[in-house]
């Protein structure tokens, strides 16, 4: 796409001053909603995301129950004030798609066969959007699941790699996403580097794709450490006291 915005300047700096392989500043907090079984709040750059987990609980409607395992029902929702032009509230095609892929990504790590017939409900609310909300939502949701005491194989970190000005850039922001050439959100299970979510919009050559995957996976491991840190922090207060006495 032609525009006079310079995505990457001669020094290799991006529009928000990051290097090509830098993540936006990230903050995760677990256990922010007392009424949910588990919850997490996440900020990455200008994205603000809240995730809440309920369950495992009885599955309604009944016909959705699976007698062999629990089902994971995720609802991704963007608040009408989350973008600069007011978004018409309510479910749409985009949010239905994102809900589905996030459910499937989470289902692959949760030990669902421990809770036959039950439902695990995950609600992701996008309070402020600035590109990469599905990744932010999934990252937050997996922290919320762990906070809810859900038995799971691992956490799921997620990040997007994109292309703008012909260069591969990690964790695109709004401008880079809008005027760039490609966007590749991915999520992995860090222990095995199994890919549980992968989408692409735009074009990349095979070489670019391979290299994008490599930087994406490396960034996921970085996010994984922050997820673990957020969970440990939630329960660290009592521990420190014990060490002192």
């Amino acid at each position, binding site marked *: 796409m032609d525009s006079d915005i310079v995505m990457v300047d001669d020094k290799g700096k991006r529009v928000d001053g990051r290097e090509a392989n830098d993540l936006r500043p990230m903050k995760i907090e677990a256990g922010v909603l007392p009424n949910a079984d588990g919850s997490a709040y996440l900020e990455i750059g200008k994205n603000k995301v809240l995730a809440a987990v309920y*369950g495992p609980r009885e599955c309604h409607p009944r016909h959705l129950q699976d007698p062999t395992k629990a089902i994971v029902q995720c609802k991704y929702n963007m608040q009408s004030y989350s973008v600069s032009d007011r978004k018409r509230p309510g479910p749409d095609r985009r949010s239905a798609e994102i809900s589905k892929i996030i459910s499937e990504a989470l289902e692959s790590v949760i030990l669902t066969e421990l809770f036959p017939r039950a439902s695990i409900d995950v609600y992701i609310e996008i309070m402020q959007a600035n590109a990469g909300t599905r990744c932010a939502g999934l990252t937050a949701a997996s922290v919320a699941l762990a906070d*809810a005491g859900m038995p799971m194989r691992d956490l799921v970190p997620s990040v997007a790699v994109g292309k703008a000005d012909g260069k591969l850039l990690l964790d695109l922001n709004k401008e880079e996403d809008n005027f760039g050439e490609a966007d590749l959100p991915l999520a992995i299970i860090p222990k095995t580097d199994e890919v549980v979510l992968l989408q692409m919009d735009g074009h990349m050559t095979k070489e670019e794709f391979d290299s994008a995957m490599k930087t994406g996976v490396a960034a996921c491991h970085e996010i994984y450490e922050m997820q673990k840190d957020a969970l440990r922090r939630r329960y660290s207060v009592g521990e420190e006291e014990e060490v002192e006495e």
Partner: protein
Amino acid sequence: MENTNAKPKREVVVPGDLLDDKELRPGSGTYVQDGKLYSSLLGVKSIRSNYVNVIPLSGRYLPQTADTVVGKIIDIGPSNWLVDINAPYPAPLHVNEVPWRVEFGDTARFLNVGDVIMAKILMMDETNKIQVTMNESGMRKLQGGHVIQVSYSKVPRVIGKGGSMIQMIKNMTDCRVFVGQNGMIWIEGELDNILVASKAIEMIDEEAQASNLTDRVKEYLERNAPAEGQ
């Protein structure tokens, strides 16, 4: 066994953390992948006689047969009641499992929606179908009182060693207290005393990891408990 009697060191683990890669055996809250042992829960790692367990810090109560629980009636059928025991599944209480003789369709005369009962888990089968019973000594309808909810994993702390913690709360607040294994706690007494007791239990729920918990709860109760306690 000698070394396992030492106070186990506490380590908070998150899902996916490596617990052990050789001789130890997998306990609850763990899973094995490629011969290595990982945590499946957010919890505290504990090693007991060659088994690694992860004690959860949060989560839903999963019933165990013969657990004593506190439950709330949420629905009535012609020959059964549905009890909310904070499990992932509804827990039916059949008329055959209550200490009264109940005519078909006459269930509401004995227990109504909103009533609180003490019950025992009769069984929980491999498909996680639950049944509760009141046909055991001590099981009964709990008249009046308040019900509060703590995480089921904190129940042992609320009860304390040999019941020391709960006994202290009972004595100092002059309340009657029943603690269900599911984390539901029923308290009865003077309104002010109930508030003090539930505040103390909330404190235990929040600070369950701290070691001098009993002293701090005692101090709190001494400051706030009614005069005749002490």
